[in-house]
């Protein structure tokens, strides 16, 4: 999957799950997930929706060290191409 497509899909999921509003089209690789209104409860839905959208399975603790949108895209890119 193209990296731009991964970012596009992540923006769509974040728009559904974040607790705060943002101009999602302007959200980029360097934005931190925490700064986008994904609190601990929203993170549960966020992870669930990512797993459904990208048809991958992983545990939340595997995301330790993933803090930005770009790092998450890299993580998913590795999982979906594995």
């Amino acid at each position: 999957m193209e990296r731009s497509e991964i970012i596009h899909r992540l923006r769509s999921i974040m728009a559904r799950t974040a607790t705060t509003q943002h101009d999602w089209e302007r959200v980029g690789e360097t934005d931190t997930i925490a700064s986008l209104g994904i609190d601990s409860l929203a993170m549960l839905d966020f992870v669930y929706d990512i797993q459904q959208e990208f048809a991958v399975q992983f545990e939340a603790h595997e995301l330790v060290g993933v803090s930005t949108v770009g790092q998450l895209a890299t993580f998913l890119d590795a999982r979906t191409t594995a």
Partner: protein
Amino acid sequence: MNERRRVVVTGIGLLSALGGDDERMVERLFAGDSGVGRLRSLDAAKFKSQNAAELAPDVLPTALAALGLRATDRTTDMALVVAGQALVAAGLLQAGPAAPAAPGSLAETTAVVFGTGNGPSHALQESWDAYAQKGGRLLRPTTVPRCMANAVSSMASIQFGLRGGNYVVVSSCSSSTVAIGTGYRSVLHGYADRVLCGGSESMFTDALYSSWDNLGVMSKHQEPTRASRPFDVDRDGFVLGEGAGALLLESLDAAKARGATIRAEVLGFGESSDGTHITRPSKEGQAKAMLQALRSAGLPPGAIDFVNAHGTGTKANDATEAEAIAMVFGSAGAEPWVASSKPFFGHLLGAAGVVETIACIRQLELGRLHGNPNLERPDPACTVRLCGRTATTQPVRIAMKNSFGFGGGNATLILGRYEA
């Protein structure tokens, strides 16, 4: 807490089949313009009863966007919207996206009490569907907070930072009337300075609509706008509706102190339980709730100008309610006008009471009664003074609002035009 304070309404929020606010609602109410149509959100052809009073498609998304909120569950979303509307109308919140919490000292003493018959019905349906399709392992991890009944009040408390307490009342079709009555008592006796109370309901999911359809209590009339016909001899059941309403109740002193606009006064509340049957109504239980409300208000039956009936349009309810009204008022020689708002809004179940209470407040403010639009042939067994089919100007000051639920829970409010 033995004090007794006057309790007034300083904010109103409303979403109904008549529109996204109470101004649009009142225009349509007095024009005799029903919100009932053919069921749109589900495949109507599958059901015996195919009429519904649904929100127009754009109303809820537009209202959510105006407050900067995202959708979670239809019932909870509607509750959040009307809560925000009522707080804005009361001057406790600035309008606009990402609405901030109400000011600190006010938020600390403002409670939230909402009524709902079934809670977050759409989230529940989605969860059942997901469970059936994928099994429990793949259920959404936030299923519990989405589906718990008190999400309806909790989300309003969280969104607007209201910290005076929050819970949900569940008593079927009297739920939001009991919520208002509970809020009234809290302010009356000084347990809270303000209570944001109301109700929200949407049962337009396949499983729930089928459940009501199979119970055989909904009208099968072929013309949607004529289907809900309370007190008419040809009535054949109710039309399911959806929506939500909220009232900001406040002590008169607190309202005056902050210069709030006062819309109406809550004068009394009564409740009873039939203790007889899960669905069959009891005239004794209903009359008891009305008498308790009059006693609470310290008013004789003759003080009531009009009764906004529960008036579902089922054979059993309307005959029983008419008898109960006659029992309460007849012996006192009083004959208030009687009408039901359900031909306009449909039956909103747990949210019916608050939406119809808002209709009462507007009728008191404007000195105009909306009438019984489908009362083509009044049932001779209903020996009460029924309003005619069109709106009329009446010098009304005090209203009684009845709500009676499956399970036998009866609730009655007394509302007055505010007089200093």
